[in-house]
């Protein structure tokens, strides 16, 4: 919008200037960006026999120039816009592709939560299966790290559960390390029973809360 106004303003300015110069018999009315107007033509106009005829001709020329200028401006504007649009689309496409690629990598790296029995931190067979499926992505994308969170259900002491949650996280981390992920890339943290995923107070809720959760850390750019 602002660009359009700029162009209209510019054209109006050029017009005024050219009319002013020509009617005042300016000898060297050169338009700075009016590429169509040549000094030759101006000279010819200026050396015309009749002043009025020269003036009329000058007015016609001015109108023609004005038209030509406007058309030129419009053409340039359209070309510029097309170029900009193409560039923008290309950038958007690249961005989206990168995003999709990153999302695909994250999806590939995301290990599902694994669950534990009450007051236990040994990895059940179902948990081991999940870790075995999850580990290869980390061998493929070596600049990604992960944090293993250990959680417990609401039963029992806060402190003992913090220790138990840490044991769960550590067991999962060790298993992943044995599958080839460098130890340095795996961090553990325990939240004990303080951050239940299911706020319920029955075995169904407890079973969901006795878990290890995996958080991916992409490389810092």
């Amino acid at each position, binding site marked *: 919008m602002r660009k359009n106004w700029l162009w209209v303003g510019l054209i109006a300015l050029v017009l005024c200037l050219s009319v002013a110069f020509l009617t005042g018999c300016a000898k060297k009315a050169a338009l700075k960006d009016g590429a169509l107007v040549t000094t030759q033509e101006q000279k010819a106009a200026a050396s015309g026999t009749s002043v009025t005829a020269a003036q009329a001709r000058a007015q016609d020329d001015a109108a023609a120039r004005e038209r030509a200028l406007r058309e030129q401006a419009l053409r340039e504007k359209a070309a510029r816009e097309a170029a900009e649009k193409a560039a923008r689309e290309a950038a958007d496409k690249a961005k989206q592709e990168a995003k999709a690629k990153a999302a695909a990598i994250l999806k590939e790296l995301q290990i599902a939560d694994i669950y534990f029995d009450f007051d236990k931190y040994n990895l059940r067979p179902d948990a081991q299966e999940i870790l075995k499926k999850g580990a290869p992505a980390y061998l493929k994308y070596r600049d990604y790290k992960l944090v293993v969170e250990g959680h417990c259900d609401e039963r029992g002491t806060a*402190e003992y559960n913090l220790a138990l949650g840490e044991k769960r996280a550590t067991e999962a981390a060790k298993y992943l390390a044995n599958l080839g992920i460098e130890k340095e890339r795996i961090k553990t943290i325990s939240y004990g029973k303080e*951050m239940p995923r299911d706020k319920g107070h029955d075995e169904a809720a407890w079973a969901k809360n006795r878990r290890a959760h995996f958080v991916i850390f992409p490389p810092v750019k």
Partner: protein
Amino acid sequence: MHDLRRPLILTLFLFLLLSAGQVYGKVYIDIGSPSFQKFPIAIADFKPFRPVADKGDLPVWFSDTLSRNLTITGYFNVLDRRAFLEDPQAGITAEGIRFEDWTVIGAEYLVKGGFHTDGRELVTEFRLFDVVRGELLVGKRYTGRPEDRNRMVMQFVNEILLSLTGEAGLFDTQVAFVRKGDAPADIYAINFDGSDLRRITNYNALTLAPRWSPDGRFLAFTSYRDGNPDIYLLDLRNNSTRKIAFYPGLNLPGSWSQDSARLLVTLSRDGNQEIYDMNVGSLLLQRLTRDFSIDVSPVRSSDEKRIAFVSNRNGSPQIYIMDADGGSVRRLTDQGNYNTSPAWSPKGNRIAYEGSVNGRFQIFTIDAEGGDPQQLTFEGGDHESPSWSPDGRYLVYSVRVGGRSRIEIMNAGGQNVRVLYQGNDVSQSPVWSPRLR
């Protein structure tokens, strides 16, 4: 927190030496014994000594405030004043009291008192009588501003407790606990009488496991404010906080040493949860446990020669005892498959803990040698995290039913349960402060 530390500006003196002579060498009733009967006590309305222009509600205010605070202790059965037979005009000295008027309604003790104003000061007198023997036990006079009258009452309640039980009251103590409201979890504190609930920490991060230092100056706790569960020390004198343990993994505070110089801690910096003794000044550590299982929640015995802690080295969490240097580890609890949260009595040799009974947690106590286990709570809900009062006569603990919990106090025998705090949220891990003067 600061109110109780302000020096009590009351002038007081013993105006009868008789009482001092009687307190000396007295044999107290064992208030911890299961056969203990509450002291039946009558509290007469106070008398204006001189015609006071605007005595207002003061006569009744004194007797009501005394009644309420004596009831809170759990040791008194305060008699209904409607049963009183005595002529309200009777005096407040032994000579002016017809003791049979009190014994006949079942009282064994009687509190009488009076007051007058002297310029801008309020002068009060409190007297405790043994009506069975017909004699004065304690008499006190306090002078202070009228706004100090609540503290005058507290002071005399302490005198009554000292006289009858040999130990002052707990009105200068508080309970800190973890409350999970809108914020992830913060530490709060509340007075012994349930007044003045206030927030101690506000980090917008999980903040857990408060531990008072015995000198009342510090509160140690664990907070995730920097992401990892690290141990912080809050200096209650100037409200400054210092991070004292921030090793990779868990950093959890346990109990302090009596001189407030060392803190038992649980750290997993060596790859597994182990117990260490930390010098709070130098932050140097002495490792006490070496085991591949969980070792957590260390507490010192009152003589500091032993440490009780929780370990699952034999499969399930149980309470173990070791020497202060980590030697001679032996298992203490052998019933049930989940016994945690040991708390060593500051007076005597008993350890309180929580144990699982039919899937519910209840409070127990047991001798430090493993004998005489006693279950103290029996109701529904989970009773957890017992902590002793500094006189060893009460336990504070949390009770959770579903997503709601409350903080309760009971005496060491499991009687006289009183709700200290109840909210719509989860409150856990209460810890009793030392006396904060």
